[in-house]
Each structure stands twice: as structure tokens, then as C-alpha cells.
């Protein structure tokens, strides 16, 4: 058995990790912790900063810094989740993909031969993430998706 757990740094993805470990311990499963980084988020934040602060001369640097921090944060996040998985005796690997969230997740699921995908019911904004994300992902793959509220 092979479980893909989607990590975005929210408490719901932490809960997803807990469920993944719980199942993996019973089924001797492998866990892959996946984070997807979308450069457009950094561009959006940089552009919004420019329009709101009137400091557009540093927009390029600001975008680079945001992108660097996004990557650093998610690496730390994945490392912590990996520590937890391995400390519980599970086989665990981490992956970061860059690009459109839906496309990258679907590609990973199709290429990875997973038995189960685990995702949180909410994203970092705490708003329900289930509308488009679930439609986009569950509709495109054959693998069951466990949604953790």
C-alpha cells in the first residue's frame, strides 16, 4: 500500500499526516508527503504589495524573496512531517513539485501508483477547500481520496 499525503502547512494537512501514519502502521504502507508550490502565488503577493505600498521599484526582488520563503517554509514543514512519520516507524519520503496545484497532484497520483490520497478539508486560509480542489482532483483520478475535516 502507498499513501500520498498533501501538505500545505495548514493544521488540516497536519491532521492528514496523522491519519496517514495511523493507516500506514496497520497496513505497513509507504507514505509520500507532497507539497506543490505555485509561483503565481508569489507573483500575486508581490503585485499586491506593489499596488498597495507604492514601492513598485522592488517588486522583482520582493517576488524573489517571497518565492524563496515559500520554498523554505514548505521544506521545513515537510521535514517536520517526515520526522514525525519516521519516529512512528513508518517508511516516508517527501516531494516538492512546482506548478499548477491541480495538474501537479493529478500527475503525481497517476505516475505514483498510490492506493490512497489524503488531503485536509480546509486550506491555509481555513476556508473550505473542497469545492474546486476536490472536483479537480477526485474527478481526474481513480485513487480514493480521504478528506480530513
Amino acid at each position, binding site marked *: 500500500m502507498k499513501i500520498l499525503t498533501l501538505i500545505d502547512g495548514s*493544521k488540516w494537512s497536519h*491532521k492528514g499526516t496523522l491519519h496517514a501514519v*495511523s493507516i500506514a502502521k496497520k497496513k505497513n504502507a509507504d507514505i509520500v508527503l507532497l507539497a506543490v508550490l505555485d509561483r503565481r502565488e508569489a507573483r500575486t503577493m508581490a503585485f499586491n504589495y506593489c499596488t498597495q505600498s507604492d514601492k513598485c521599484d522592488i517588486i522583482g526582488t520582493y517576488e524573489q524573496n517571497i518565492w524563496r520563503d515559500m520554498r523554505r517554509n514548505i521544506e521545513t514543514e515537510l521535514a517536520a512531517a517526515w520526522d514525525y512519520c519516521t519516529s512512528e516507524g513508518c517508511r516516508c519520503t517527501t516531494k516538492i513539485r512546482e506548478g499548477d496545484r491541480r495538474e501537479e497532484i493529478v500527475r503525481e497520483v497517476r505516475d505514483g501508483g498510490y*492506493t490512497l490520497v489524503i488531503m485536509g478539508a480546509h486550506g491555509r486560509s*481555513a476556508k473550505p477547500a*473542497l469545492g474546486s480542489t476536490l472536483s479537480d482532483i477526485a*474527478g481526474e483520478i481513480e485513487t*480514493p481520496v*480521504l*478528506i480530513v475535516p
Partner: protein
Amino acid sequence: MGYFNSLLQRKFKDVAGKRYETIARDYREFLLTEEETVVPEVLSILMPLDYFVKEIPPQLYETLSSYERAKVTLVYIVDMEVIRIVADSLDEKAIAEFRRKREAFGEDLLNRVITSLEGAGLTVTSRMFAGEKFDNILELMKGYDLIAVSKKYGTLTTEIAPLSSVTLKLAQMARVPIIVY
């Protein structure tokens, strides 16, 4: 526990400093509580089925088998609204035949799923009735630890809308983990 404590320490507690307690209270929806760090044991699983659920992937059985102490309840619902629509156009005999065929399909599906679930080591009960696919399941969901629902449940799905609107709504309203397959 160490995992989450360290995350909180790193991400928030040090930054918030003296205001930690206040902020933790006011923004508690972003933080894991002690209770949330424990995965609740799954002892009951609800699995709605209907005419649109033709196949169940083997990965679902493998996943459900990890809840070895759980009892699975299969619920096959014949849509009352469809029966009403048919009743508006056809005679009693045709309606009875329509219902008989839907129930025969349900019996066959239930038997196949029961065999597979029992083969995965799970205890299974089943029931079939005519009702409202969304309302009845929404009400039933309250008594279960886990829901497993097909992405085709409740409505006809298409290539551009591959996830049933009934399933999406159930997933959005579930207060327990839900597996969409």
C-alpha cells in the same frame, strides 16, 4: 505530540511572544487542539450506494481493511423523486417493473460489495429503501465515524463534471473523515 508542539513553537509561539495565549484563543481555528492530535478510532463506516455506483475500486477495500474493528453499513437508496417522475408518465404496472429492476440492481450491487468487504475482513450490514439520496444520507451520517462515497453517487456524472454534486455537498457537510472514490 512532539511533532505538533515543535511546529507550534516554531511557527507561532516564538513570534507571538507574550500575546501567545490571547492570539491562540482568538485564532484557535488555525491551531491543533490536544484532542485533534489523536486520530479517533473508526468503529462505524457508512457507505451509500445507488444506481449510479457501478464499480468500486480495489484500493477502497484495501483502505477500509485498515479499520479492522469497524462495522460497515451499506445503504442502497432507490430515488423516490425518480419514482415520482416515472409515476407521472406511466401506469402502475410500469412503475412496479421500474422499481423491481432498480431493486434487483441494488441487491446485486449490495451482494458484490458485501462479499468484497467481508473478504477484506470487515463486518457488514446492509439495507435498501426508497428515499431522498442526499437528505437521508446527510441525516444518517451523524451516527458514523467514517463515510465512503462514490464520486458518481446520486447523479449522472460527465467528463466535464466528473464529481457528483450530491457527493460534493456530502463531503462539504461531513463532520467526520470522508473517502471519495
